[in-house]
């Protein structure tokens, strides 16, 4: 059976407490979505402020308004993501909407300095012409989907909340059956995810997946799938500290 790490983007991190947590690293697609939302927010913010300045320009004078617009442009351009990612949620509004946040590789919230580094590097990641070709290439070349700014700051973008899986109950177990051989941890985990998720699949898909474990179940087709379910059920009932 393939190791689960190959199948998904979970990154194990060991904490000082001696326990291992798994961070779910986000891929470029979600991040592009978040970026576009942020872009809209930034442009909207800039336009609204510019209009406000222009109205108050009657009192302030045109030159002052031009100065304020430039200053606002500078701040929004460079510090919008720095401010939000160093903040409480570790994410820009766009990232929050998509359900992402920025953390250190160790899983802790990032510092202001890291936020500065990763976001100022956008100037290079965005090359050429803010198309983010460089950043995208770097994402695909690294194990944790890090663009150059992430590499320099030591940060990763992870899912803040795992999207809830639709609550389809697994088919009720009909019987419990001990596996014919002792199973490794990864194998037990795979069986248990098979049970947890099988409610989401149509019958044909369940059988197709179960056929991959024919060596274990000893049968193909619907019988194999039901035997795997029975083994998963048995494991759930049996596994305990001593066994």
């Amino acid at each position, binding site marked *: 059976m393939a190791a689960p790490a190959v199948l998904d983007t979970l990154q194990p991190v060991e*904490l000082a*407490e*001696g*326990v*291992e*947590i*798994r*961070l779910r690293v986000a891929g470029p697609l979600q991040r592009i979505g978040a970026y576009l939302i942020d872009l809209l927010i930034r442009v909207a913010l800039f336009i609204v402020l510019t209009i406000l300045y222009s109205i108050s320009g009657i009192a*302030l*004078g*045109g*030159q*002052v308004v*031009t*100065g*304020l617009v*430039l*200053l606002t*442009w*500078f701040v929004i*351009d*460079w510090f919008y993501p720095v401010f939000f990612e160093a903040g409480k949620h*570790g994410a820009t509004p766009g990232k929050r909407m998509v359900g992402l946040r920025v*953390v250190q590789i160790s*899983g*802790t*919230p990032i*510092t*202001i*300095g890291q936020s*500065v*580094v990763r976001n*100022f*590097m*956008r*100037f*290079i990641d965005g090359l050429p012409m803010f198309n983010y070709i460089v950043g995208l290439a770097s994402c695909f070349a690294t194990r944790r989907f890090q663009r*150059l*700014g992430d*590499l*320099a*700051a*030591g940060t990763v973008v992870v899912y803040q*909340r*795992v999207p809830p899986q639709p609550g389809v109950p697994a088919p009720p177990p009909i019987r419990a059956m001990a596996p014919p051989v002792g199973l490794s*941890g990864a194998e*037990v*985990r795979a*069986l*248990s*995810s098979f*049970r*947890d998720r099988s409610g989401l699949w149509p019958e044909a898909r369940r059988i197709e997946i179960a056929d991959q474990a024919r060596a274990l179940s000893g049968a193909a087709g619907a019988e194999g799938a039901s035997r795997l379910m029975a083994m998963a059920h048995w*494991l*759930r*009932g*049996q*596994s*305990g*500290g001593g066994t």
Partner: protein
Amino acid sequence: MTPGEFERKNAARWAEYEALLAASRKKGGARDPRVTELPRRFREICLDLSLAEARMYGGLLIERLNALVIRGYERLYRTRRGGMERFVRFLTTGFPQAVRRDWKLFWLCNAAFWVPFLLLMVSESRDMRWIQSVLGPEGMANMESMYASREGQADHLRAEYGSNFMMFCFYIWNNVAIDFRIFAGGILAGLGTMFFLLFNGVYIGGAAGYANHACDPVAFWSFVSGHSSFELIGMVIAGMAGMRIGLAILRPGRLPRTRALVAAARDSLPLLYGAALLTTLAAAVEGFWSAQPVEPMVKYVVGIIGWLLHAVYFLFAGRGD
């Protein structure tokens, strides 16, 4: 013990932990006496997670515990943000010490700027074509409109109300952003940083040479002298920050490249902050002082004092600690 039993037995503790987390997030939550319980609860949940892992409970249970541990971890392991005190300490010791620590890079970045600057400026007396091709027709027209004569300079730009403030903002928008780009260019193994330093050296040197040749030199030099020290040293220090990062890629030393890069980026931050600060000060001087109708001699003296202050600051500040 089956997963179901495990979950039933501990459900109350987990709910309590979640309630504590929520309480600690509320305003003034840090003063809530119950919140002192949080670290202990967090370690319990860590233990639950490792137990569940070791017993191969798998699936949704582990996922839930994993999420609970991550939330507590993020809550407990925040970094504290220093306030005014840290900023003052940065000004009096941290920044000059950081510059002195990288004195080799300081001279390297100075050379990258000043050598092309001097070459281009001096080339004026031999062959104007170098400068002409660097500035281009637009650049030359621009220089002439600003520095053709001393009377023109102040009237031309700063007669209207608020224009000093406008120029201050313009210099922030333009020059501080240049610092940031010089810094970011370091990630390309220092090539981007070097490009910007050399480019600025060539262009500013060309502008100075052109001012000597075709404009009123006094108008030019008296305008730039006041903010020159802040702006050029700021740019060079932004270059140091970028090269710091570039060198980590070129010569990571004993660390793997990724780790060396992270460490170098962290060390480069004081340089970057200092550079941005100097360039902001330069913008203030350039916006509110440099174009004032004051005797050129006064402006030269102010400029020289600026350079001396920088020398004293970077040579001596923060030596005691």
